[in-house]
């Protein structure tokens, strides 16, 4: 502790678990927006990642509310948010935005996209598996060209609805923080936009890593056209994200409001590692330079022409660095916003617990859980292009 903080500010209210919440929903929104590139904007190159991105979004979306629930003082009362929401509260809308996104957008899109395959898997499997897939079809087993064409157009329409929904899901998370006028570190109209673009960056980076790893572990060849395209979009999103962050930063410095002294102290001391080193240097500058030089973002084939194997490594490194950077962004927003007193006269500290419900172990658990769910989803609904079942139904 340094300077003066209000007596009630000694306890940090939002812990590591709340850092996870914007991080995870960001990955959901980002992965979905990547998927929509293929579906709506016809970016054919990224097709190998389309289904993987959808399943990734679903796996992370299932986990997204868990850290929130674990953090509540009375989780058993959380359903009150659905029954008697305070319509003036940004947080009260979470349940509805989440339910909309999960039920209306993601599940339906995945279902329409997979329906043909699910029907074929049901026909080709035996025993419990057969019944499981039949249940998943919800009784819609018609594979006529007309039905398949309907699947396709329905999927496209849902993606079109899904893009603004994904924007809503994560922009809204930014609004939760950005609308708190009591907190000068949070209170910014740019917050939802910054959150959104950092979400897109993190989602693309995550799917890029997952695509590379899963392809390697399946002993397949990585589709370099796809990977280059991912890196290209990652670069563009990162440029926009870094520009917005810089704008926010410059704007604050230039306005130099009452809070500028304490916020400068905050950045120079408490957040030096997480903001300057991790977010700015590791998470933004290094990937930005690496992608600018090697990806086709600025010049076809990149400025530095690397062989595919090396390029893959650069992309992988950049994507991992970006993940570290985005997690740091969430940390800097959530924890950083609580490290200075609202009296603007002092700084406090946050000590991460190791165990306990809000500890590091729990956080790591919540970060691993989506990958376990994704593994199950991938087993049930293989997203690979080479695992699409052959249509023998028409011949049978």
């Amino acid at each position, binding site marked *: 502790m340094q300077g003066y903080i209000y007596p*009630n500010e000694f306890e940090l209210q*939002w812990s590591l678990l709340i850092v996870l919440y914007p991080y995870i929903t960001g990955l959901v929104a980002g992965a979905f927006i990547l998927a929509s590139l293929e579906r709506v904007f016809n970016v054919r190159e990224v097709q190998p990642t389309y289904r993987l991105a959808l399943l990734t979004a679903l796996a992370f979306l299932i986990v997204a509310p868990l850290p929130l629930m674990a*953090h509540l003082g009375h989780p058993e009362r959380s359903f009150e948010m659905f029954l008697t929401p305070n319509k003036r509260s940004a947080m009260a809308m979470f349940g509805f935005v989440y339910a909309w996104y999960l039920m209306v957008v993601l599940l339906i899109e995945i279902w329409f996209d997979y329906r043909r395959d699910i029907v074929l898997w049901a026909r080709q499997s035996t025993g419990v598996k057969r019944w499981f897939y039949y249940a998943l079809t919800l009784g819609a087993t018609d594979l006529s060209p007309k039905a398949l064409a309907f699947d396709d157009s329905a999927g496209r329409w849902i993606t079109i609805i899904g893009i603004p929904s994904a924007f809503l899901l994560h922009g809204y998370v930014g609004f939760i923080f950005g609308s708190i006028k009591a907190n000068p570190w949070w209170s910014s109209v740019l917050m939802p936009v910054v959150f959104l673009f950092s979400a897109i960056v993190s989602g693309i980076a995550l799917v890029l890593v997952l695509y590379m790893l899963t392809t390697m572990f399946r002993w397949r060849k990585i589709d370099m056209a796809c990977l280059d395209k991912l890196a290209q979009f990652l670069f563009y999103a990162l440029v926009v994200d870094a520009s917005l962050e810089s704008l926010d930063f410059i704007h604050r410095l230039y306005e130099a409001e009452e809070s500028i002294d304490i916020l400068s102290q905050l950045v120079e001391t408490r957040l030096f590692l997480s903001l300057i080193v991790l977010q700015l240097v590791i998470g933004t500058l290094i990937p930005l330079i690496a992608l600018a030089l090697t990806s086709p973002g600025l010049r076809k084939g990149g400025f530095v022409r690397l062989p595919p194997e090396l390029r893959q490594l650069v992309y992988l490194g950049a994507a991992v660095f970006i993940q570290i950077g985005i997690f740091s962004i969430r940390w800097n927003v959530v924890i950083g916003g609580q490290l200075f007193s609202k009296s603007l006269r002092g700084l406090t500290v946050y000590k991460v617990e190791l165990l306990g419900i809000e500890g590091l172990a729990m956080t790591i658990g919540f970060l691993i859980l989506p990958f376990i769910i994704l593994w199950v989803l991938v087993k049930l609904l293989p997203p690979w292009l080479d695992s699409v079942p052959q249509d023998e139904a028409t011949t049978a």
Partner: protein
Amino acid sequence: MSDQGIDRRAFVGDLVAACLAAGGPVLLGMVRVAAAQGVGAGAYDPSAHDYGIGIDIAKCIGCARCVAACKAENDVPMEPHYFNTWIERYVLRTDGTVDVDSPNGGLDGFGPIESEGDVLRTFFVPKLCNHCANPPCVQVCPVGATFQSPDGVVLVDDSYCIGCRYCIQACPYGARYLHPEKHVAAKCTFCYHRLVKGLVPACVEVCPTGARVFGEVEKRATPLARFMRFNDIQVLKPNLNTKPKAYYANLDGEVR
């Protein structure tokens, strides 16, 4: 002045009736008790009131009897870092620097001031929930567990709060905390259980110098209205448009 919050007309009516009926000091005392408990005054009508608090910085001596009374009265955890009200000490120095402290909310007293030579001015500032007319905490509560009562008091429904702590983040004054045993948001209630009985908040009751003045904001003939008429009044962080109803007299610009 423990009867400020009572409906005066009803009280006087009861008083007159009692005097007419029997007279004598004994009965008069009984009526006084009945009125204080809200019995004689009829059921408490929140819509008939609009409460606020006045605080005279010049009168506060930093004794923190208010803090002690509040903790005893309101089930506030005794350990540090949980306060419905607390006292801050400001030390303004000749070089323009300001030292602020509030050791255990002022409850254990304030230590001697370091290097007294360059002290320009010192003063104490009692803090509490401002019971804002435009409360950001009420706006953000996802389930409406924290609300504005018709008498202008901001309250928390213990049986409804989900403990998300969004209101604590939204309060610009640091007036809220999460109750460590109940796991719900907690704050100053203006001693609501006392208000409905026609009593003033415990902190006001015990203040030895009358630095705290409680009462109706709008009505003209009340101690608070008088306090606001004869003092230059300021509120904390007016730029946030929370419209606080803790009215400070003799407030220094350094206080945030």
